[in-house]
């Protein structure tokens, strides 16, 4: 065998391997296709690609894997809402997902438009922007932190920098946290999550936000200031940082699904109704009942976009204030160079699944299903795909065949989910509690996820029975002056550091998982031990090494003499 033939053989082998691999896969792909063809007849599909929000990425990924069984191939890469809008405008994707619409032109003349590409907005899913944190007290994670919006705004603008701040203690009904730096984790890339968060800051706390930002309004790029704040790109990286080895003391903002996925706690945020609530699907849905939707069809650039001012001030005690919708951008132009009938069909059917059956997954994943009015409007937008290309088949794909958990078949006008929502536990009321239950596990309020619970609770009917809604152990260890469900002001004289410490002790001794705030810090090793150690080390080293050195010295002198 000559050298050349050996080389040739090697090359041929590699080529054959590659070809075999290539040839193998279409065969399997075909198998799959033929399998699927046995199920009801369906239109031809083509792969569609999209980029954008990481806020809604987790649920979209799940939908994509769900529709795969129907032969719809969707590629979604995330990368941030700004990237999504930009890719869509550059015509490199078939759809985009973004929390905020195209901003038109900003004050610096930078264009943020679709570059003339025809498009329509379509609400995709609702959800709450959650504040996830890692805070350890005596080696145990705090899982029931409560904060008011103002405190959050001050934390993210650098006005509150330590966990033992009085404002935080006040939010937690007097319990103070250890002396530990607060490290806010923000997004470094152009992000819809940041845009939602800063919109809320700008609308609800302009006096705190605007001086920090230097101007008014929202931004997709969080202005990172100071030495302490950490910036990370993508919701996933923010979540990784908070939950990572160095996460102690950090707090970051991500969609509720991320902490849920990691089993990490989220902040219960104080709402206008005076309760601290978690962004579960119910609380988000309640809050968004006050969302105003721009219904001006004449202007496609704003049609269906959200105006959330009333959401932030929703007086319902169940409402989670930082709730919002996420949007998909779909191309509507008949001449759109990227789109084909097959792609439009894939997009339409993907959306049909997402808006209907897909919404049932929203709750477990940490999002909230869309209400019926938005699903209806969404279907109208999907219809523009057919307008652009009459070959798109939309039969049997409408609201009547929609399996959406917010729909009440008997009473189509009402939001079934919002009516099912439980009232928050009494210990979540401002001035009471705090509850000992963990957050970030998707249990609704304090009582757990019980969809068939009494839906008749109304804001003024008083909180449901505290004994059922909250475990009893935490109640025992709560300050004795606050009766469960009392909702009264805290006992005379705010509990000081000593009380906090006792509470922590009580919490741990009672064997409950909850970690209460306490001002206990871990004692440092006595400083003199270090000095002693160094001296001892020096002595030891001298003891061992000096004889050798002396010998060498003596020997050399003797040798030279």
């Amino acid at each position, binding site marked *: 065998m000559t050298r050349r033939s050996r080389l040739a053989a090697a090359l041929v082998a590699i080529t054959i391997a590659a070809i075999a691999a290539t040839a193998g896969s279409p065969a399997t792909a075909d198998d799959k296709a033929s399998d699927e063809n046995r199920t009801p007849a369906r239109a031809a599909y083509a792969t569609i690609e999209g*980029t954008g929000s990481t806020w809604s990425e987790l649920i979209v990924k799940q939908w994509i894997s769900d529709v795969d069984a129907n032969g719809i191939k969707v590629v979604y890469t995330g*990368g*941030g809402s*700004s*990237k999504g*809008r*930009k*890719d869509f405008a550059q015509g490199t994707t078939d759809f985009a997902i973004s929390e905020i619409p195209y901003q038109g032109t*900003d004050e*610096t*003349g*930078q*264009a*943020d438009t679709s570059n003339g590409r025809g498009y329509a907005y379509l609400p995709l899913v609702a959800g709450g922007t959650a504040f996830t944190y890692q805070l350890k007290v005596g080696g145990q994670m705090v899982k029931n932190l409560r904060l008011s919006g103002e405190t959050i705004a001050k934390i993210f603008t650098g006005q509150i920098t330590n966990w033992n701040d009085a404002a935080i203690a006040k939010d937690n009904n007097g319990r103070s946290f250890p002396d*530990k*730096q607060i*490290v806010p984790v923000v997004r*470094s*890339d*152009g992000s819809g999550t940041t845009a939602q968060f800063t919109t809320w800051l700008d609308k609800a706390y302009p006096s705190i936000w605007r001086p920090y930002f230097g101007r008014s309004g929202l*931004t*997709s*790029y969080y202005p*990172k200031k*100071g*030495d*302490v704040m*950490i*910036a*990370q*790109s993508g919701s996933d*990286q923010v979540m990784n*940082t908070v939950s*990572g*080895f*160095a*996460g*102690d*003391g*950090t707090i970051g903002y991500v969609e509720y699904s991320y902490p849920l996925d990691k089993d990490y706690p989220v902040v219960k945020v104080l709402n206008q109704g005076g309760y601290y609530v978690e962004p579960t699907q119910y609380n988000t849905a309640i809050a968004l009942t006050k969302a105003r939707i721009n219904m001006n069809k004449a202007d496609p650039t704003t049609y269906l976009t959200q105006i959330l001012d009333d959401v932030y001030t929703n007086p319902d005690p169940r409402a989670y204030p930082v709730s919002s919708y996420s949007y998909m951008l779909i191309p509507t132009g008949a001449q759109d160079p990227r789109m084909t009938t097959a792609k439009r069909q894939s997009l339409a059917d993907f959306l049909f699944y997402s808006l209907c059956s897909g919404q049932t997954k929203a709750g477990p994943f940490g999002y909230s299903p869309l209400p019926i009015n938005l699903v209806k409007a969404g279907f109208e937008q999907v219809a523009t795909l057919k307008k652009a290309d009459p070959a798109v088949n939309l039969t049997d794909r409408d609201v009547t065949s929609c399996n959406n958990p917010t729909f009440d078949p008997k009473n189509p006008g009402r939001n079934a989910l919002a009516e099912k929502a439980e009232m928050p536990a009494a210990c979540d009321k401002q001035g009471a509690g705090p509850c000992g239950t963990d957050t970030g596990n998707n249990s609704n309020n304090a009582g757990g996820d019980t969809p068939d619970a009494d839906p008749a609770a109304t804001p003024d009917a008083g909180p449901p029975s505290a004994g059922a809604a909250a475990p009893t152990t935490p109640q025992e260890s709560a300050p004795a002056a606050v009766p469960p469900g009392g909702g009264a002001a805290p006992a005379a004289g705010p509990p000081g550091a000593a009380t906090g410490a006792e509470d922590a002790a009580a919490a741990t001794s009672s064997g409950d998982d909850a970690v209460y705030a306490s001002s206990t*810090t*871990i*004692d*440092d090793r006595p400083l003199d031990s270090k000095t002693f150690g160094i001296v001892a080390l020096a002595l030891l080293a001298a003891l061992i090494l000096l004889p050798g050195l002396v010998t060498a010295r003596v020997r050399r002198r003797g040798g030279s003499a």
Partner: protein
Amino acid sequence: MSTILPDLDRAGEVDVTARPISRRSTGADAVFAHGARAVGASVLVITGGVGLFLGLQAVPTFQRYGLAFLTEQQWSPDTDVIGIAAVLVGTLQVAFVAMVIAFPLALATALFISEYAPARIRATLVSLVDLMAAVPSVIYGLFVALLLMPYAADLSIWFDRTVGWIPLFAVPGGNADAPLPALSQYGFSSFVAGIAVSMMVMPMACAVMRQVFSQTPPGEKEAALALGASTWGMIRTVVLPFGRGGIIGGTMLALGRALGETIAVALILSPAFEIKWSVTEKGGNTISSLIANRFGEASDSQLSALLAAGFVLFLITLLINTLAAIVVNRSRSGAETD
């Protein structure tokens, strides 16, 4: 059979006009020469085109932002303030840390392989180092980001406590003297990213150094040993002076690679757009990770700014690689004289 000798007398009758000798190739050779030239030209067009394209793309950026592009620290597309001062410094910092770690390791490993290791395992060691160079960078990134980062953060705290007065190790955000310093201020730093990059470039530098060391004339080495030099004495007086070119060249080649490393850095560093002296403080940025993080959301002018940043990076690595090539070649030519 008999040998017929040419009859010299009849030479005059043979046509004695010399066969025309020309350097111009004919027939298949001409096809070969022109074909090769065409291939060379096409490669020239492709590779040169890339460089030219980058240079041309940088022009509108410099027109738009002027020299402020090189001095501005912020990369803020929101406000149309864009500059690469911070990322440039960050790039150099990461590469600097990487080289501080990689250089002694590479030198020691090269010396160990060429002078200390038993001859029978030498080939295996060479293969192992080459294998280390072939391990994908994303795997090093994984290794450092998920396994080493906590240790590196602890080390950074220790640095801050003991030599915190050196700006290089000072971390303003983390109170190192507190019983529990904020660990979050010490991870995600240029230092940690530098560790990952050093693992990538170390084998590269080591390979060049080892190759040059192995070319040391054996006669000189044996002469040194015969004169009573210890192994280290022989290394110091023969191997290191002879291999100086290889050491410098290998280091610079590794530096060139360290400047352009992307994924490991993007996995580790938390993006920050400010010049900081400290390498152990969290946050930083390099040109390549800036490109990886921001290419997607860049508008046309920002894309051109990213290309301009890439062009600057390319110029730096080009400069360093050229210097390295000159140094290595000079040392090689010395090797051939023995």
